Structures are given as structure tokens and as C-alpha cells.
């Protein structure tokens, strides 16, 4: 069973960062308790294979994040990676080498139920061909303790589209849900127009959001923007995660979306613990130094 206050628990474990609590599933207290609360960890934008001044520690950051999560006294039920597992390369052989090494590193996670989805760095240059060889389907669903998870692929099309075929699949899956079912959507790019001048959008994301609107208890977790961000489209919350390679500036805060300068404390990097109950509680987990 989940402990009564997960934030206190994580503080005791010495890993808690900023906590964000949202009123997710307000009408679902009874069913959430009946189904059982749980927590999972979100990794995002690990960009394995990147090298450069924005992160001189790039070869070790992912391993440190794995160690941080392995050090949680209460292990998550599962772990999700919301895209850009690897840094892009034009060389298909190097791409596969990076995916192989990435998979080796994350195989050290104590939790073995690990779910992946692609980012544009993984999948846009070959329409997901290499990604599928290593990680399987780019969009799929799964269920966990009464919550329905849907992963969406908005990167295998290099124009950042979900596409009509996937949208039809998404609509068909949602039609099987009741309006008050608990639903989590996982994707890489923001589905809404977060910052169009920086291309922080999904070309046809508005269609996906329209499909989601009839569902009262639905939330989105994504990556891509390399920082924590919380946004509402109507009643739907969208939560962006930090990356594990370099942070990017706040949307529109400067003319260009260039990486922020390296910070030896790695304060802009991390993973996230997500507790699913009648509310969602997000606890940012910094990367352990050393």
C-alpha cells in the first residue's frame, strides 16, 4: 500500500524535489481507492549519445538517474520514458548502437516494468524503423490498477503529426472508455500550442485534445521541452518533465530555444515520481551528484 504522504516519504528518502499536486480525478476518490493507488516514475529526454558543452557529464547522467530511482525505498510500480531516449544521428548504424547502449544502461533499473515511447531524435529520420527494432510499437495502450494509459506517437512523422490513422486508433480506443474513467496519455511533444515560434507544438495535436475533451479524468504527461511545465487545456492537465541531458529556457523567455548553460549542480535535470490517487502528486527527483 502507498504510504499516506508520499512527499514526506520521499523527503525521508533524501531525494524529494519540488512537489506539485493537481486536482486530478476529483470525482474518482472512491473508485481510485477501490482500484488501489500507485506511483510510477517518468524519465524523459535522456538523449543518450549527446556530447557537448551543455552537459560535460552526458556519459554518466543517465546512469546517475538510474541510481537515483533504484535508491527509492519504495520502488515505483513501473517506469515510463517519454521520448528522445537517444540523440539523433544521420548514421543508422550509430543510431542502433546508441539504442543498444541505452537499453543496456536502463536494464539496471530495479523495476523491470519499463515502458518506452519515441522522441523525434529516436524516430523522425527513419520513421521509427530502428526504434521499433529495439523498443516495439510507437503507440499502444496498457492498464494498471484501474487506470488506462495511452501512448501517442507524434514524432515518427518528421512533420510532428499524429496522423489520421493514429487519431482514428486513438478515437476508437477512447470510445471504449466511460466518461469518468481514469485515463493517462503519454506522448513526447506537447499536444497543445505551447510555443509555436519554437515549434513546441504537435501539428494536429488539437484534434487529439478534442477527442479527449469528453473524458473528465484524463491527464497528459510529456517531454520534449526539457523542463517542468504545467498547462491546462480546459479541464485537461498537461505536465512536461525535465530532461536528463540539458535544460531549455522557459517558453518564449528568450529569442532562441538554445540550451541553458551547464550547471554543475545539474539543477535543471531530473526524473519525476507520479503518485496516482484521487489526486496526482508529482515529485521532481534531482539527479544525484557524484
Amino acid at each position, binding site marked *: 500500500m502507498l504510504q499516506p504522504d508520499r512527499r514526506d516519504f520521499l523527503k525521508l528518502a533524501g531525494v524529494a524535489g519540488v512537489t506539485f499536486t493537481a486536482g486530478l480525478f476529483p470525482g474518482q476518490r472512491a473508485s481510485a481507492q477501490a482500484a488501489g493507488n500507485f506511483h510510477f516514475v517518468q524519465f524523459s529526454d535522456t538523449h543518450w549519445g549527446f556530447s557537448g558543452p551543455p552537459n560535460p557529464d552526458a556519459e554518466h547522467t543517465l546512469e546517475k538517474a538510474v541510481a537515483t530511482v533504484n535508491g527509492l525505498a519504495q520502488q515505483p510500480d513501473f517506469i515510463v520514458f517519454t521520448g528522445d531516449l537517444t540523440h539523433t544521428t544521420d548514421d543508422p548504424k550509430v543510431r542502433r548502437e546508441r539504442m543498444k547502449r541505452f537499453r543496456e544502461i536502463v536494464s539496471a533499473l530495479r523495476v523491470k516494468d519499463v515502458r518506452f515511447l519515441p522522441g523525434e531524435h529516436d524516430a523522425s529520420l527513419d520513421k521509427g524503423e530502428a526504434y521499433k527494432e529495439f523498443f516495439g510499437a510507437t503507440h499502444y495502450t496498457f492498464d494498471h490498477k484501474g487506470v488506462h494509459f495511452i501512448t501517442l506517437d507524434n514524432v515518427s512523422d518528421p512533420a510532428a503529426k499524429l496522423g489520421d490513422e493514429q487519431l482514428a486508433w486513438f478515437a476508437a480506443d477512447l470510445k471504449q472508455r466511460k466518461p469518468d474513467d481514469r485515463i493517462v496519455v503519454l506522448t513526447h511533444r506537447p499536444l497543445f500550442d505551447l510555443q509555436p*515560434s519554437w515549434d513546441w507544438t504537435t501539428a494536429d495535436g488539437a484534434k487529439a485534445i478534442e477527442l479527449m475533451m469528453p473524458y473528465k479524468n484524463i491527464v497528459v504527461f510529456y517531454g520534449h521541452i526539457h523542463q517542468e511545465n504545467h498547462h491546462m487545456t480546459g479541464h485537461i492537465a498537461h505536465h512536461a518533465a525535465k530532461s536528463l541531458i540539458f535544460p531549455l529556457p522557459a517558453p518564449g523567455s528568450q*529569442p532562441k530555444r*538554445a540550451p541553458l548553460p551547464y550547471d554543475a549542480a545539474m539543477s535543471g535535470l531530473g526524473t519525476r515520481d507520479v503518485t496516482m490517487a484521487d489526486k496526482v502528486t508529482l515529485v521532481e527527483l534531482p539527479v544525484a551528484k557524484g
Partner: protein
Amino acid sequence: MKRRVFAALLIGSAVGGSLRLAAETSNEVKILAMKFDFTPDTVKAKVGQPMTLVLTSMDRIHGFKMPDFGIRTDILPDQETRVTITPQKAGSFTFFCDIFCGDGHEEMNGTLVVEA
């Protein structure tokens, strides 16, 4: 969010003969796209004066997106894609490639500077 300021947009292929829907185009600016730059990456325009951007890729397919003008188009290799705009507002407006083209894609952008 900035107000959309475009007045006219036309896209055509020089190979097949460009479809000219905007009658009063006063000037043209050629922009070459190649991983991972637009050349030139700064283009000047004047409020109220039509301008045609003639876009050509030198290597692979790229995208051209200028959200403030509601414009996006593909840029194809060895073909001219023509975009005509008539700015209605002074300022600096970003354009960028929106088709992922590799390591450096995120830096493939430019600025349209519109003077009063």
C-alpha cells in the same frame, strides 16, 4: 500571442509555373535551405509592401513555418516554393524548419524583420 499579420499567401512550383494569385508583388527574396541553415537567415520587409519569399532546398526536404503569419510549407530539393506575404505590423518574426532534419534541426531558423 502575436496577432497574425499575413494578408496573402501563395505557394507554387517554378517547375510547373508558379500560380500567381497576388497581383502586386513588389519584390522577391531567395532563401536557400540546407542542413541546418537558411541563407539568408535575416530578411527585411516593410509594412504594407508585398514580398515573395522564394524557397529552395539544397539537400533534402525541409519545412518553412512562420507561425505569426500562419504560414507553413514544405521546401523541396531543386524546386522553388513561393510564399507571398504582405506584413501589416512592424516587428521581428521567427521562421524555422518544422520537418526534423537531424542534429542541428533545432537551430535551423531565421528572422523576418518588418520595418514601418
